[in-house]
């Protein structure tokens, strides 16, 4: 558990990520993902409870826990005094590793930064700085890698090459924990996913099970308004664009009938198969509903 003043950032999170997994940690802003990662990294201390990395407690055995962990932080931070290569050498040195230039060259090549090795960090673009952060997390060859929104601000092409590299690390046996706002990335990469809402785990399953469990249809409807009887099915509503949950195709006929009865004009209507984004929206709307429910 972790409380910041009146705000309880995490409450009763009980998670085990298995060795070699590609694990996704999803949730809206403020759900507690970064707090959870900060506890694993030793940046935040929990008010109660414990966390372990490969069996090493993050407080009582912090040296072994931190050696086992590489963290790509969410904030785009850098030290303006140093070049890319110096930054990576220094980071390796903090872990007591010296003469690691071969590994640094390999990291730079995988992150497409070889030509920038001697450039000062200040001169790099946002995407390049983000890749250096990934390099810093990998430089001590940690078996567990946590990536907190690693592709924010990285263009599509580089994102693909970055994921190729992370996938390779996962195939080589590294455990990967990922938080991302790009749900299609989580769907494509993660074998198992935990969804957090208001500091609690509201879903924890394999990506495949989550998709099949919440299988169904959604319909994207552009209309002036929605029949009152369909408000409960809304997953998302933005300026006349509604995303509605359907249990089956028969529901579509019922929706059209309701629209006809209330003489609501349809501008656009499209059916969609369930994907992780819709699973996410359904779970989050369920979590919000249960959080605001008043006991009878």
């Amino acid at each position, binding site marked *: 558990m972790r409380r910041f003043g009146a705000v309880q950032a995490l409450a009763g999170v009980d998670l085990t990520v298995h060795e070699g997994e590609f694990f996704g940690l999803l949730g809206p802003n403020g759900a507690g993902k970064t707090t959870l990662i900060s506890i694993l990294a030793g940046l935040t201390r929990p008010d109660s409870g414990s966390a372990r990395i490969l069996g090493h407690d993050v407080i009582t055995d912090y040296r*072994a826990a931190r050696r086992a962990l590489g963290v790509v932080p969410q904030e785009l931070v850098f030290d303006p005094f140093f070049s890319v290569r110096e930054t990576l050498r220094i980071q390796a*040195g903090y872990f007591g590793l010296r003469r690691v230039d071969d590994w640094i060259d390999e990291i730079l090549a995988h992150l497409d930064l070889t030509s920038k090795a001697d450039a000062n960090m200040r001169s790099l673009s946002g995407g390049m700085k983000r890749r250096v952060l990934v390099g810093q997390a990998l430089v001590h060859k940690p078996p567990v890698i946590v990536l907190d929104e690693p592709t924010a601000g990285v263009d599509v092409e580089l994102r693909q090459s970055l994921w190729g590299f992370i996938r390779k690390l996962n195939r080589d046996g590294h455990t990967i924990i990922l938080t991302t706002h790009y749900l299609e990335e989580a769907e494509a990469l993660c074998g198992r996913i935990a969804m957090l809402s208001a500091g609690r785990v509201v879903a924890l399953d394999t990506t495949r099970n989550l998709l099949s469990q919440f299988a169904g249809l959604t319909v994207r409807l552009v209309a002036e308004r929605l029949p009152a009887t369909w408000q409960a099915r809304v997953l998302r509503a933005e300026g006349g664009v509604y995303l509605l949950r359907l249990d089956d195709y028969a529901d579509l006929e019922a929706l059209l009938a309701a629209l006809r009865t209330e003489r609501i004009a349809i501008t656009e209507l499209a059916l969609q198969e369930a994907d992780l984004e819709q699973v996410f929206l359904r779970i989050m709307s369920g979590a919000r509903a249960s959080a605001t429910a008043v006991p009878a």
Partner: protein
Amino acid sequence: MTSFGAGWPTLLHKELLRFWKVAFQTILAPVLTALLYLLIFSHVLESHVSVYDGKVPYGAFLVPGLVMMSVLQNSFANSSSSLIQSKITGNLIFVLLTPLSPADLFIAYVMGAMIRGIAVGLGVLAVTLFFVPSLLYLPHPLWALGFALLGSAILGTLGLIAGIWADKFDQLATFQNFFIVPLTFLSGVFYSIHSLPRFWQQLSHFNPFFYMIDGFRYGFFGLSDVAPSTSLGIVSLCAVSLALIALGLLRGGWKLRA
């Protein structure tokens, strides 16, 4: 299996690179400032001020004070500015994510501060020797070295504490301008406390900076306002006390880890 060694030498190396890359600002500028103090004060006061009953010319008396003042102020500046910059820009996270222990952080930041302070002090001594060459033959070099090491360690530790405490640059500037600078200036850099009225003389004995400068000066002249062993005892006590406070803050993660 990856074999991990000690990490603090790298943090120390980074601290040294940090000030060395801007040596013009961190080494040469304070040397020039001290030189200006020497030229102006010794020129204006040489014939008006008598120190140690006239046994030492004022210009010569001034040099060890200026050297030690530069050592102290630059030691403080190094650890405090490094830490506050890392906190504000957020790159302190790169240190906090590592297995570096509180003692590792303490050693690296304080040693970095000591090396910068002593480098500036040596620079000031080198340029002022041109004006007072007789100071090259100091009678008690080990006393001078001991006080330089202890003084720089104390101010490096104070800088570390201030850097941990401050959330903004102006808080750090407040600490520096209202605490460090007055205590340094009122410590006998520019005068012997025996030339002060009795009240101010007594008050000076509560200023730990006075003992650092007086003990350091003993190394150059074999003369001092208080016995160098007394100064050494007080300065050592300060060093140990501040080190314990800094280590406690680092261990607790105050203002560093949420």
